[in-house]
């Protein structure tokens, strides 16, 4: 119990470290908010041009996209742990994890927490600005159900971030791969348009990747967008992805650490 507590305190210390560094750049929070506002404003006016059967009103498309970009932002935050790890290697601070009783694997896993929590806060802010400034209709009766879905999705994306971190330990450079992954998952996950518009192969990929179900459930709970499948089915799929991806991520991470220690490249960049 004492050991668990000390590990949780160590993970919290890493989150606190990341928070301190985030707020030490005073303009960062402000520029983050500006980015959210500009993104919302852009899609608000783009949505005025969308007049298709799928979305009877422009506002419906706007709501559809806002939920998509909120989820994508969480995915990007989770995958950013790979580039943060590379920065730690460059600064020589990763050595602190490797030499500490807390350890490299736990340290890297803890690094994924702060960016995800921060992006979850910004997700709420984005939806609030969307609702208040751009009159985005929120389905308040089911909106609270989006919270566990968001947390489950965030955990799943976190596991993907750890997989990319394992790749950083081995290959050192995965920024481009993370960008491609985010773009591909976004295009094939129904972030900007329904996956029904995709060709057969695209729909097949969409159905076997987790972003699709996280986005679809979030939309259903937040704005009442109809689901393709059932709520239970989508939740089970997310849980299934979690059950597979999480142990896989920790396995890959510990193998990555072991491999780089053996190759003596663990502190290289």
């Amino acid at each position, binding site marked *: 119990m004492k050991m668990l507590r000390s*590990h949780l305190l160590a993970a*919290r210390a*890493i989150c606190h470290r990341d928070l301190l560094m985030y707020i030490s750049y005073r303009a960062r929070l402000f520029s983050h908010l500006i980015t959210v506002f500009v993104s919302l404003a852009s899609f608000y006016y783009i949505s005025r041009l969308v007049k298709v059967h799928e979305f009877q009103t422009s506002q419906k498309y706007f709501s559809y996209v806002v939920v998509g970009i909120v989820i994508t932002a969480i995915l990007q935050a989770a995958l950013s742990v790979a580039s943060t790890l590379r920065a730690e290697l460059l600064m020589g*601070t990763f050595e602190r994890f*490797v030499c*500490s009783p807390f*350890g490299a694997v736990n340290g890297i896993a803890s690094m994924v927490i702060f960016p995800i929590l921060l992006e979850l806060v910004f997700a709420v802010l984005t939806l609030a600005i969307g609702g208040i400034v751009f009159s985005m209709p929120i389905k308040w009766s089911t909106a609270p159900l989006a919270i566990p879905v968001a947390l489950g999705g965030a955990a799943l994306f976190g596991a993907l971030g750890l997989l990319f971190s394992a790749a950083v330990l081995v290959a050192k450079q995965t920024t481009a791969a993370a960008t491609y992954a985010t773009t591909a998952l976004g295009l094939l996950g129904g972030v900007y348009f329904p996956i029904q518009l995709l060709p057969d192969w695209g729909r097949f990929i969409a159905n076997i990747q987790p972003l699709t179900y996280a986005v679809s459930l979030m939309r259903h709970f937040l704005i009442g967008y109809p689901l393709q499948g059932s709520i239970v089915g989508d939740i089970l799929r997310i849980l299934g992805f979690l059950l597979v991806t999480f142990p896989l991520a920790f396995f890959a991470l510990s193998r990555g650490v072991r491999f780089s220690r053996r*190759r*003596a490249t663990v502190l290289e960049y």
Partner: protein
Amino acid sequence: MTPAKTHLDASTNRSHSELDLDGKDEQDHVEITSRARLAVEPALKLSGVSKRWRRSRTPVLDEIDLELLSGSATWIGGRNGAGKTTLLRIAAGIITPDAGESRARGLSPERDRRAYQTEVGFLSTGNTGLYARLTVRQHLRYQSRLNLLTTNEAEQAIEREFRRFRLAEIDGRRVDRLSMGQRQRLRLAMTMLREPTVLLLDEPRNSLDDEGVAMLLDVIARTAARGGAIVWCSPADETTGMDFDRQLIVENGSLVPA
């Protein structure tokens, strides 16, 4: 400053195990706790350690054997690229040797990773490993958590290191506003937070002024006095300011007397 000189004369080099168990009957052997078992092991033992870089024909370290007993201070020198840092990194459990093994108090860096890292403190060369935007105290709090110290232990350890390295004068300052010598004092304080019993120092004098060197030597003396073992690596021409129990050089992959 002369650190405790113990156990290094080959003629008196009885193992701790022999010293501690002399005169005990078999029952006592059975009752030795795991903690006591650790205490009788050499502080650090490298056995047959070899490491070869990829695409290199000769190994950087070739079947190195090294045993450090409690209370000893060892200097390891060698020209640039001889393998001093590689040796320290293996001893610190950061990298894995191709052959052989490293043990600290009988612990393995693979099987007993957490306990091993609790015993071993490693100060890398240079002035890296710090976060530019964090203050001195924030660094120590952060490091104490990575060391899995409890809140009380952490606060005590932080105050102790503040005194040892006179960090109060730079307490609230961000690292990017510290001089190189002040950064080195902070790095030393972070290394000493959990009071390691095996202290591995890679060019620890880096940027330290006379006052900083005195603090460093004091910490080394205290570590030796409480049964710790110290390894100090530096180029052959660097003045360390202290006497060592043993002086070795890494040369052509081997560890030879200086």
